[in-house]
């Protein structure tokens, strides 16, 4: 891996650690696993998938706001904007660092629920997390307060979560298979393995499109460190 990107990722992980993300998610993991066993065994796996999709995978959508706001308020973003860090490296680092912890938590929950498609769970959680984190970063780049962030994430949460919940609990239509969240959920369920290449391709396209929008917004944020709205 290129050294600067690696440094950034290590920096982000260190930051997330200092601000207690790792602690919080250790507690959450424990709590989720306990909660799982409150469900009847028949729907335990489904419940686990919903948990993973709506929390560790969606972590970026909840926490990117505070991460970026810290960087703005401590003016760390200024220091980064006048260093050789590329916009793409900045984005990748955020996405990968959150993706790692999200995936670890996801795998633990899935395993506890008896899901044995661990490789698919890893891929699906990570890719889902990338999508949520990109949305989070997009919003975080635009806002000035945590409240604004919370409000602005609501439509994204609805769009990402509601169709997936419908799908998971039985409302299934073919066109829904284009929804990235539903692809992620199907992958976690280990369904449709024969079409995995197509699903990966679909997720890849989604990620690429969302990344391109995020890139433009983050680039503007870097430039606005100079104080100019472009």
């Amino acid at each position, binding site marked *: 891996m290129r050294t600067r990107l690696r440094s950034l990722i290590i920096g982000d992980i260190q*930051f997330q650690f200092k601000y207690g993300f790792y602690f919080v998610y250790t507690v959450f993991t424990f709590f989720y696993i306990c909660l799982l066993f409150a469900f009847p065994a028949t729907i335990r796996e489904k419940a686990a998938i919903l948990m993973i999709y709506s929390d560790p995978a969606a972590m970026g959508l909840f926490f990117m706001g505070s991460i970026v706001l810290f960087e703005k308020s*401590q003016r760390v973003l*200024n220091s*980064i904007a006048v260093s*050789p860090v590329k916009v793409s490296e900045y984005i990748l680092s955020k996405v990968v660092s959150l993706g790692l912890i999200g995936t670890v938590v996801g795998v633990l929950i899935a395993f506890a629920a008896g899901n044995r498609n661990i490789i698919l769970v890893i891929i699906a959680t990570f890719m889902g997390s990338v999508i949520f984190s990109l949305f989070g970063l997009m919003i975080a780049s635009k806002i000035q307060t945590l409240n604004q962030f919370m409000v602005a994430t609501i439509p994204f949460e609805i769009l990402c979560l509601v169709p997936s919940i419908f799908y998971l609990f039985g409302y299934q239509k073919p066109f829904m298979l284009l929804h990235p969240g539903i692809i992620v959920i199907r992958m976690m369920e280990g369904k449709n393995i024969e079409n995995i290449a197509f699903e990966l391709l679909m997720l890849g396209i989604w990620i690429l499109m969302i990344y391109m929008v995020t890139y433009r917004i983050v680039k503007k944020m870097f*430039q606005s460190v*100079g104080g100019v709205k472009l």
Partner: protein
Amino acid sequence: MIKVENLEFSYTKKPFIKDINFEVKKGEIFGFLGPSGAGKSTLQKILTGLITNYSGSAIVNHTESKNHDDRFYENIGLDFEFPSLYEKLTARQNLKFFGSLYNKKLRDTEELFHKVGLGYDMDKKVFEYSKGMKSRLNFIKALLHDPDILFLDEPTSGLDPSNSRDMKNIILEEKHKGKTIILTTHNMNDAAELCDRVAFIVDGRVKALDTPHNLIMSKGATKLKYSYYDKKEIIRQCPLNKTVEDSKLLDLIQQNKLLSIHSSEPTLNDIFIEVTGRGLQ
């Protein structure tokens, strides 16, 4: 190293930075002086590529700053007006992180800490630092990757005289190593001591630009100030090269009635007031 031509920029529709032209050579310390809100930090942001929608030209290290790529920053060190550090990390962790973003070989971190008197505070978290300590840390952060051009925005503000002295010595050391330095300051004594040339900036324009010595010599004449008693103490002054024409002074000397007499050379601050029509706040 730096060449600015017909530079214009504004945050709003109203013109602000206008008609700026100057050049800075390698190894020079160039000062931006001016009252608060004059546009010094803005000018620095343009030169460091943070503001890109200017017109005219600002060439820094052979690159037009608005067209810079990421390598541009390998050779630029910035000491912002305000601390720009991770508060929850220690000072050492901060430098380690920011240093790791450069491809260049870094300077010895511990030595830098010792140079600014933070040798014993390296492992304290930044939020435990005082204002002056943060300023010093921010300063060495700019030196870490040994850049060719340094932009220092009020580096000595908020420092006690001894720390300020240390910092000025480091700045001079960097100059002697051939580094080019842009220094923004409100402190006229620092400017006169450190800068090879200074630009007086007022309302977004350069009002005067020369060596501190030339500015003092060309703009202000040395004055003779004297006082005498005539019912109450009266203070008068005349230019030193016109003492013969001051008959009152000659009389007083004849009658041995002077209470005090001394010459006073103008300072950079006097010149500033004269050139700009206002004082530094």
